[in-house]
C-alpha cells in the first residue's frame, strides 16, 4: 500500500470518528437550557459586576460538571453592558429576540435593571435582578424578581435589635448621598412598627469632614438611648470617630453600607463596640455549625476564592443566589418553559442562599426577612455576632 493510500485511510477513519461523535453526542448532552445574563463587568460599577460575572461563570461550570439541570446542560449567555443602561437594554432585546433564553439573571445597577424590565415583561421571561433598589419589586411585576436585600430589611434588623434591648428613643444622623437618603426614608417608614421614636434627625453632606455639631445636638437631646447612622463611604467613619471624641456612650448602630474591613480601618479604635447588620458571608468562618446558611456560604466562599484568587464579596453572592434560584425553579417546574419557571420562582420556599433564606410569594418577589442579616459588633478590629435575639 502506498503512503498516500494509508494516509487516506487514516483520514477516512478520523472523519468517521468525528461523524460518529457528532451523531452520538446529542444523545449524551441534550439540548442546553439557555439562561441569559447582562451584568456590568466593566465600567464604573465593575466592582459590583465583575464578581457577579465571575460567580455566574463559575456556577454554570459547576452545575454542568454535576450533570446539568433536568439532565440537560445549562448554557450561560453572558453580556457586559459596561455600566451603560442603553447597552443593557440592547443586550436584553438580544437575549429575548436572538438568543431566545428561557430566563435571565443580571442587571448590576438599578438603572440597568429598570432599563431591561420592560423587555422581559413584554416577552414574559422571568428576570432575577441583582440590583438594590426596592422599586424593582415594589410594586410587584409578574416576571421580575431580585436577590439583594433592601435598606428596609437592614432598618428592620437594627430596630429589632434595639427593641430587644429596650431602646425606645433614638437619634438619627444620615448622609445626604443616595444611599444615606434612601435608607433614612426606609428606616423612618418602619420605625413606628417597633415602638421606637426618632427624636433627633440630623444629616451631613457627602464631603463633610466633621460631624461634631450634628452629634452634639443629638447628644444634648433628652432621652436619647441609641444613635443610628445610615450612610456609605467615609462619612460613617468620621461619625464614628467624632462619636468617640465627644465621649458618647449610647450604642451606635451603623448600616450594612459599611460592612467591610476598610470601615474598621478608617474608624480605628473608635469603631470598638459599634453594631451593624451584615450578611452571613462576611462572617462565614464564624458561623455556628448548626447555622442553616453555614454550608452554602462556606462552599461558595471556598469555590470562589479558589477559582479567582480574590476575596469573596456580597455582590457575587447576589449572583450566586440569582442563578441558584433559577436553577432550583427549573428543577421544581420540571420544564424549561418560561412561564412554568416564573410560577416555580414565585413559589420558592426556604431556598437557602448565600444572602439569606428566600421564601417568595405573589406579593413578595424578594422573599428575604430580617434573618438574612446578622447583627455584628466590632471588637478588637474584628466582627463578632451580637444579636439581642
Amino acid at each position, binding site marked *: 500500500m502506498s503512503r498516500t493510500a494509508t494516509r487516506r485511510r487514516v483520514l477516512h477513519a478520523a472523519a468517521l470518528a468525528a461523524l460518529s461523535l457528532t451523531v452520538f453526542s446529542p444523545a449524551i448532552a441534550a439540548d442546553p437550557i439557555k439562561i441569559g445574563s447582562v451584568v456590568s463587568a*466593566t465600567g464604573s460599577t465593575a466592582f459590583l459586576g465583575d464578581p457577579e460575572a465571575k460567580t455566574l461563570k463559575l456556577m454554570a461550570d459547576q452545575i454542568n460538571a454535576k450533570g446539568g439541570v433536568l439532565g440537560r446542560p445549562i448554557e450561560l449567555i*453572558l*453580556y*457586559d453592558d*459596561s*455600566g*451603560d*443602561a*442603553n*447597552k443593557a*437594554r*440592547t443586550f436584553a*432585546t*438580544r437575549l*429575548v*429576540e*436572538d438568543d431566545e433564553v428561557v430566563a435571565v439573571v443580571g442587571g448590576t*445597577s*438599578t*438603572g*440597568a435593571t*429598570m*432599563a431591561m424590565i*420592560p423587555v422581559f415583561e413584554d416577552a414574559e421571561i422571568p428576570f432575577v435582578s441583582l440590583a438594590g*433598589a426596592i422599586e424593582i419589586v415594589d410594586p410587584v411585576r409578574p416576571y421580575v424578581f431580585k436577590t439583594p436585600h433592601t435598606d428596609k430589611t437592614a432598618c428592620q434588623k437594627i430596630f429589632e435589635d434595639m427593641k430587644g434591648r429596650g431602646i425606645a428613643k433614638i437619634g438619627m444622623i444620615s448622609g445626604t448621598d*443616595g444611599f444615606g*437618603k434612601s435608607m433614612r426614608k426606609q428606616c423612618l417608614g418602619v420605625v413606628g412598627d417597633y415602638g421606637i421614636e426618632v427624636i433627633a434627625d440630623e444629616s451631613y453632606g457627602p464631603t463633610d469632614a466633621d460631624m461634631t455639631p450634628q452629634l452634639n445636638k443629638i447628644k444634648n437631646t433628652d432621652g436619647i438611648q441609641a444613635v443610628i447612622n445610615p450612610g456609605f463611604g467615609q462619612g460613617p467613619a468620621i461619625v464614628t470617630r467624632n462619636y468617640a471624641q465627644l465621649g458618647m456612650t449610647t450604642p451606635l448602630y451603623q448600616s450594612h453600607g459599611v460592612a467591610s474591613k476598610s470601615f474598621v480601618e478608617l474608624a480605628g479604635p473608635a469603631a470598638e463596640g459599634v453594631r451593624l447588620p451584615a450578611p452571613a458571608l462576611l462572617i462565614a468562618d464564624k458561623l455556628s455549625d448548626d447555622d442553616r446558611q453555614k454550608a452554602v456560604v462556606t462552599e461558595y466562599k471556598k469555590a470562589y476564592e479558589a477559582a479567582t484568587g480574590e476575596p469573596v464579596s456580597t455582590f457575587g453572592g447576589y449572583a450566586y443566589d440569582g442563578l441558584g434560584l433559577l436553577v432550583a425553579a427549573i428543577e421544581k417546574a420540571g420544564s424549561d418553559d418560561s412561564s412554568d419557571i416564573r410560577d416555580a420562582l414565585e413559589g420558592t420556599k426556604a431556598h437557602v442562599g448565600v444572602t439569606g433564606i428566600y421564601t417568595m410569594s405573589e406579593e413578595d418577589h424578594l422573599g428575604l426577612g430580617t434573618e438574612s442579616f446578622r447583627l455584628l459588633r466590632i471588637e478588637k478590629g474584628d466582627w463578632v455576632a451580637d444579636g439581642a435575639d
Partner: protein
Amino acid sequence: MIDRILNSRLAPLLVLAFLVAVIPLVAPSNFYLRVAALVWVFSIAAFGLTILMGYAGQVSLGHAGFLGIGAYSVALGPEYLGLDPLVSLCLGVFVSAAIAWVVGRPILKLRGYYLAIATLGFGMIVSLVLNGESAITGGPDGMQVPRATLFGLKLSGSATWYWVTAGVMLVGAALALNIGNSPTGRALRALHDSEVAAAGTGIDVAARKLNAFVLAAIYAAVAGGLLALMNGLITPDAAGFMNSIELVAMVIIGGLGSVVGAVVGAAFLVVLPQALTSLHDYEQAVLGLLIMVFMIFLPAGIVPTLRRKMTERAA
C-alpha cells in the same frame, strides 16, 4: 457616469433611504431592528457634529451634554410640568439650542485645544448635574420616561421605533446636506480652512461658528430625546464623557464632513460591540485595535476614502 452619481446631491440621501427600506426585509429578528434604530439615533447626533466639526472645523468634546439635555427633557417635562413627551422633546430641543447659544458665545472665541477643553468642561458639568441632583433627576439610577403617543398611536416596540428614528434620521440627513450646499455651508468650510481669509471675504466668523454650534446642539438634543423615548428610561451615562468621545469617533471614523460617513461611523460603533461579544474579555481591546487600523489605512474616514477610490477607478 459613476462620477456624476457619486457627486450628485441626492446620492447620499438615496443611499440612506435604500438602507432604511432594505434592513427590515433582511433582519432576522426585532433585535436587529433595535440595533438599526440605535444606529439611526446616533447618526442624528453625529450629523450635528458633521456640521460643527466636518464643515466648520470646530471640535466639541462635550456633545453628549446636549444629548443628555434632550434626553432628560422628555423625562422631566412629563414628570414636573405635566407636558406630553413629544412637546417636552420640542421644549428640550429649544432649551438645548438656547444653552448652546449662551455657552457658545464665549467659548467659540477659543480655538483648537482650548475649545476642546472648554466643551469638555461643559459636558462634564451637565453629567455632574444629572448625577448629583438625584432629588430631581434620580441620580445614577436615572428616570423613567412615559410612552409617547403620536396621532393616537402608542410608540412602542422595536419595529415602530425603527421607522420613527429612520424618518427623523432621513429628515436630519436632508437638512445637513442642504446646509452643506448652502451659503452657510460654504461659509463654514471657508472658516474651516482659514478664519482670517474667511473674515477677509466678508464672512461673520463668530456668528457662523455660533450657528454651527447651535445646530449641532439641536441635532444632539433630538437624538437624546428619541433615545430616551425609545428606551422608556434615561440614565446619566448618556450624557457622559465616554458618549461624547464616541460621537466624535463616529464622525472621524466615518469621514469628517460626510453625511453618509456619519451614519457609517455610527453603525461602526453601535454594531461592532454587538458583533464582538463572543470575544468576551478582549472585546474592548479588539474594538480599539479596529479603530486604529481603520484610521491608519483610511485616514480620511471610511466614506470619503472609498468614494475617492471609486472615482479614481471610474476615471
